[in-house]
């Protein structure tokens, strides 16, 4: 059910994003404008949360959308929905900026070169608008132990490893691993229920 096959109606929104990206290959400025208006808020919010500075966040968002405009072919609809792909790209770019020239940055750049396959939940992507989606994710995360939620946020928004989080929270490494895994599995389960 979580990974249920797409029905025509359900796939409409996904196709729409994919179709717009396809039009970017034809240098269609209006397609770019639509994609920007549709997704720039969440991208900016994510980048700002990671970088904590508005001017730098805008620079990175500009880089992300120019990368999309100039390298639209990097997105392959067969490998997953557009929004998760864009958010993954945005997070990696922001973390790269945060830890410029570090080994972690080099690794993420490599990952950015080859977009990963992302298996999304079609119903969740299509049915819920951005605001409701955010509410659902926040609600699910709020149900976690505060420390567990904190550990996941440190990994996601700050790009910290298990060891770094364990050191920062002064918790055993095994506990951090367990918190993160169980928290993500619970989030997955909650999103599945939403779907």
């Amino acid at each position: 059910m979580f990974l249920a096959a797409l029905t025509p109606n359900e796939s409409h929104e996904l196709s729409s994003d994919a179709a717009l990206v396809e039009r970017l290959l034809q240098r269609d400025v209006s397609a770019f404008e639509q994609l920007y208006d549709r997704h720039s808020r969440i991208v900016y919010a994510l980048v700002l949360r990671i970088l904590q500075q508005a001017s730098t966040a805008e620079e990175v968002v500009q880089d992300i959308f120019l990368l999309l405009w100039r390298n639209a072919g990097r997105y392959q609809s067969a490998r997953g929905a557009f929004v998760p792909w864009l958010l993954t790209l945005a997070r990696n770019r922001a973390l790269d900026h945060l830890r410029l020239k570090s080994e972690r940055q080099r690794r993420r750049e490599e990952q950015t070169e080859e977009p990963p396959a992302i298996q999304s939940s079609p119903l969740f992507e299509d049915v819920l608008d951005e605001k409701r989606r955010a509410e659902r994710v926040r609600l699910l995360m709020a149900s976690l132990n505060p420390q567990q939620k904190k550990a996941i946020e440190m990994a996601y928004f700050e790009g910290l490893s298990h060891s770094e989080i364990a050191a920062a929270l002064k918790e055993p490494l095994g506990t951090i691993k367990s918190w993160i895994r169980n928290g993500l599995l619970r989030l997955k389960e909650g999103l599945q229920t939403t779907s």
Partner: protein
Amino acid sequence: MSEQDQFRELIEAYALGSLDEQERVMLESHLTAGCADCAKALAEARWVTSQLAYLAPAAQPSDMLRARLLRTVRADAAAQPVRPSKPAVPVWLWAGIAALFLFTAYTTWDAWKLQRQVNEVKKRAAEELKLREQLQEQLAVAKREARIVMDPRSKKIILPPHSPDMPQLEAMWHPELGLCVMGQKVPMPGKNKVLQLWLIPKTGGKPMPSQMTWPDADGKLNILVENPPEVMAETKALAISEEPLGGSLQPTSTPMWVGGVS
């Protein structure tokens, strides 16, 4: 816990990017080895992880950023030509079609050439066969003539010319093998004319028309009549006259050679 389970436990943290170096390298090796289950789990985990973006407090980029981006994008679009859309038929397929066309054209041409060679060989063979038949026929005639000439039962007939500047002809008549007329340096008959042999019966009736012929390029004349229209005993004389092409039922000109049979 199986090794597979151990890897599955690392998937979520790997998608999040929080694995320590050693575990990350270990899982990447496993994924590179082609574990389909882990690859699928990773794709799902990446999607779950991407949803964490919605934890970020809502924020909106400035209008200036939008304006700046669109300005850059419009300038890009104006500066760079529109990328040609992907052709319906890829280049490699066109190359394949062209190669197939060339191959077909070549094989057609080659087949046509072979057919022409076959036809030429057939024609040559037919010509050879015809020549062989002609030679066999000539050989049979020569043999028959030789037998007529050599056989003591044959009767020799001299055909003196009507004109003194013409050569004399000789004939040999065998009662069973036929009649053979021979001569050398015989002039070619006139245009649209032919030399025709006549058998003049003893009864005083009309001359019996026989074979028509021409001397060869060297003036050699050979007439073989296997079944003469009249038997030797009933024939008074042989005559040869010049007649129109196709021959005549009655002589239309004065005979050029006449020779008595008995």
